[in-house]
Structure formats: structure tokens, C-alpha cells
């Protein structure tokens, strides 16, 4: 069980100074167990602030966050324990690596949980396997590895806590396409094997279209849209008003439809587009 509910969540930074800024306004959401949801929005739309509430790193100015029906901010201990249950991977997580070896860095979370040595070892190896970190790297210094490897080690550091909810802030930012695909695969794999709830923050529509079952669009601190990819991407005009666009494949499908190529609705990944185009060609030649 790991269901997250937010009730009228609001957050204001630097309240009472000239720099006062409300980042999240009245957000009420329910993210059920096992869901793969994506939060998208423009820079400064409040999405990063929002997710930091979900593991009690930030306390709401008003409103509540419930995990399995219990307020995660009810006391100091609840605030600490929620961090094991809700794993948060920050943007550019490779900047948080600090240990001398890869192994010890991945073990940092489980060690903080005061687990036994064998348990830690098991979890480190499991997390490394999930993220495709080879055991040969365990004794190397994390600082001398490549960007993509560092990113995967940092994500493994969170996965090693076996969170029931995994939240990732822009996990693919600044990676090459191969690195992106690999990380998204790792995340999908983790969810399928453990049944965890996954929440991914992104501004890349192409990534989101491929993996998420639900899309939550943030704009100016509010939830502007919430639905399946089909529902959200069918509102292309509204999305463009917020400064977001539909996936490239969907754009192309749209343009082709305008040229009287009979493509079905609901295409937003390259794979689907290719399939549909092949079907159209075969239909014509037949």
C-alpha cells in the first residue's frame, strides 16, 4: 500500500518579505498505489516544490499530505520515516555523490536506516542491478565516472531504500538519447518488479508520452490538467497556451493528417506513428 493524497496543498516561499512567492496553490491530488504518473510544467510552475512536499522535505504553508491515509507531517518521527517510504531523486542527482566508493554511496541511504550489514549488501546489489550499475564499478570513486553512470548510481542510492513511492525530478535532464532511454527503462523495470508508485517530473513530452499512464500538468502553481496521455495531448491548443507542446510524434501525425493522410487519433510515440504509417502504406498498396 502506498497511496499519496494531497489536500488543498499550498506553499509560499519567504512569507512576509518582499521576496514572498507562492509556488503551489491549492493542489488536491490522489495518486493511487502502483500508478506511473508524470508531472509536467514549465520552469517555475511549482512542480519541483510540489514533489518536495511528498516526502516532507518541505512543510505545506496550508493543506495536508497523506500517505496511506496518515498525515506525513504529524510529528518529527513521521517526517523522518516517510523518507524511507517515499524516495525522492533530485534533479542532477549526481551532484549529491560524496563517498569514496560507488558501493558506499549507494549504501548511504540503507545505512541511515540502520539496517544490518547483510541487508545493506543485499539492497545495494539489488539497486545496482535495477539501475544497470555493474558490480565491477563498486570500488571506484563515483566522481571519476561518466555523467550517465553517476546519474544511475545516484538513482540506485535512492532505490536501495526500497521506497514504495519513487519520485524523480527530471531524471533524464542533460543526458544523451541512449542514456535517457536507459534510465527510463530502469525506472519502468523497478516499477514492474516491485509494484511501486512512480512519479516522474519532466518537461520532455516525448519521454512522458512513452512511459506514463497519467499526466498532471502544472501551471502557475495549480493543476491545469490531469488525465491520461490521450486526454491531455488532445488539448494541444491549451497546452501551447501554457507554453508546453505535444510530443513530436503527435505534432508530425497532426501535420500529416492535415495533408490528408488518414492516421488514427491518439498517436504520440514514434513507435506508434511508425506502425500507423506502415499500416497506411500497406492499405494503399493493397
Amino acid at each position, binding site marked *: 500500500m502506498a497511496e499519496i493524497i494531497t489536500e488543498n496543498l499550498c506553499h509560499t516561499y519567504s512569507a512576509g518579505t518582499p521576496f514572498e512567492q507562492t509556488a503551489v496553490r491549492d493542489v488536491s491530488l490522489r495518486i493511487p498505489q502502483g500508478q506511473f504518473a508524470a508531472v509536467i510544467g514549465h520552469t517555475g510552475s511549482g512542480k519541483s516544490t510540489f514533489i518536495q512536499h511528498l516526502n516532507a522535505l518541505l512543510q505545506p504553508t496550508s493543506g495536508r499530505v497523506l500517505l496511506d491515509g496518515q498525515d506525513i507531517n504529524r510529528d518529527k518521527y513521521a517526517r523522518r520515516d516517510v*523518507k524511507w517510504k517515499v524516495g525522492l531523486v533530485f534533479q542532477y542527482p549526481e551532484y549529491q555523490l560524496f563517498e569514496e566508493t560507488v558501493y558506499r554511496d549507494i549504501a*548511504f*541511504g540503507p545505512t541511515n536506516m540502520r539496517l544490518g550489514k547483510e541487508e545493506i549488501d543485499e539492497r545495494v546489489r539489488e539497486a545496482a542491478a535495477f539501475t544497470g550499475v555493474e558490480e565491477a564499478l563498486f570500488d571506484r570513486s563515483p566522481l571519476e565516472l561518466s555523467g550517465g553512470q553517476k546519474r544511475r548510481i545516484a538513482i540506485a*542510492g535512492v532505490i536501495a531504500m526500497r521506497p514504495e513511492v519513487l519520485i524523480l525530478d527530471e531524471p533524464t535532464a542533460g543526458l544523451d538519447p541512449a542514456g535517457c532511454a536507459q534510465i527510463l527503462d530502469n525506472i519502468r523495470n523497478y516499477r514492474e518488479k516491485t509494484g511501486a508508485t512512480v512519479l516522474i517530473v519532466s518537461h520532455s513530452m516525448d519521454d512522458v508520452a512513452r512511459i506514463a499512464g497519467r499526466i498532471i500538468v502544472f501551471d502557475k502553481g495549480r493543476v491545469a490538467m490531469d488525465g491520461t496521455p490521450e486526454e491531455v495531448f488532445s488539448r494541444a491548443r491549451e497546452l501551447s497556451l501554457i507554453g508546453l507542446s505535444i510530443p513530436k510524434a503527435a505534432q508530425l501525425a497532426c501535420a500529416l493528417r492535415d495533408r490528408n493522410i488518414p492516421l488514427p487519433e491518439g498517436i504520440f510515440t514514434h513507435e506508434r506513428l511508425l506502425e500507423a504509417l506502415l499500416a497506411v502504406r500497406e492499405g494503399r498498396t493493397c
Partner: protein
Amino acid sequence: MLKDITLGQYFPGNTVVHRLDPRTKILLVVVYIVALFQARGWVGYGLVTLVTLLCTALSKIKLRSMFKGVKPMLFIIALTALLNIFYTAGTPVRPGWIITWEGIARAVQMMLRIVLLISGTFLLTYTTSPIALTDGLELLLNPLKKLRAPVHEMTMMMSMALRFIPTLISETDKIMSAQKARGADFETGSLTRRAKALLPILVPLFVSAFKRADELAVAMESRCYHGGEGRTRMKQLRLERRDLIALILGGLFLAGMFVLKGFGL
């Protein structure tokens, strides 16, 4: 929590005080400090307090934010007051007591002096952006260049340091959050435990600070920065009429304080 540090914070605004030339403001703060130390009696302190309040009102800085700057010094202020109460000779409040009326007066004046000193200097940093401040400082120290003092290099370093304080603070904040998300605990435990707990923050912070410094050096070089020789400014500082008026008022204030000192007030 780290965002609460007000030291050297700048509150943007568009008042007369904000518009004054940074050189004028730096000079006025020097004048103000000299004047403050001329105060001998209640009249003198009263005048300085009045001038401080007037300047604060003119710059539209809230008294609350002023107090925030004084807060970290409260311990020192209290200590000074306490020492003055007990170590000033004079007529005892009650026969047999060490506390004297003179001591109490001294303590209040000393407290006032420290608070005013802090408020005056904070008024400068609250109303002047760090860049303007270092620019003003460089121009004021220009004569020292004749003595081969590396004025430009020093002020450049200062403005860079100032520029990167907020960046480093937000970076620290981010790293702290990331480590907290992995269950790091910075608030409880023995002193050695807590010192050890800083490692997960300091290592990434240093790594990124060095990287940033490297990138900054490359960025500066690729824009042909080669030191202060023959360098011109995008924004030339010019003294206006209001600067002249401010300086004259400052001079009058200082003269007034000297006169009051002459009378022992």
C-alpha cells in the same frame, strides 16, 4: 533555514537612499561611524538615533528587517550591557549594591551604540546592490593603485565572492535536501556525529564550487578579461546633485556631533 541569513542582503527599491551613488553612501557610513563615536551624552545619542531612524524611513526599510540584522549580535550586546552595569563606578542604586546609576546609563548607551552601529552599516548593504558596492569601493580606493595596491583585483574578488554567496547557499540547500531525502540527519546526535554528518554536504559542495570556479575562469577568459588595466565600465558612476546634498548634510551632522561633544552632551 539557510535562506534566513540576512548578512549583506540587498532589498531592491527606488528611494532616494537607493539612488545615491555608492561612493557617497560608503563615505556617509564612515562619517556616520565617526559621528556615532563622538556621542557622549543623551543628547548626542538622541541625535544619532534620530538621524538613523530618518534614514531608515527614507529608504523604506522596515524596522523589522533592521532588527533581523541585529539579532545575531544580541548576545554580544547583552554581554556588553551586563559588564557595564557591574563595572562602572558611581553612586549605587541602593547603598551597598555594586549596580550604579551611572552603570545603568552607560549600559544603555553602549547597547544603543552597538545597535546603531549595526543598523547604520546594514542600511548601506540593504540599499546598495553588492555590485554597486564593490564598484564604489574600487573607485574610492583608486588612489591606492598609485602605491601598486591590487585594488581592482581585490574588488573583483570581493564582487565574485559576494556574487557566489547566494549561489552557494542555494546549492547547499539543494544538497542538504538531497541527502535528507536519503535519510541523512543533521540535527541530532553527538558533536562528532554531527560533524561527520556534514561530510555528505561538504564534499559535493566543494566539488561543484571548484567546477564552477573553473567554468567562470574559462568564461571570463573567453570574453577577453585580462585584469583592470584600461578597463571601462558599462555603467559609469556619476555624482549627482543629491549626492552633494547628502554629503553636505553628512558633514553638518558630523560637525554637530563634534560641537555636542565639546559641550559634553
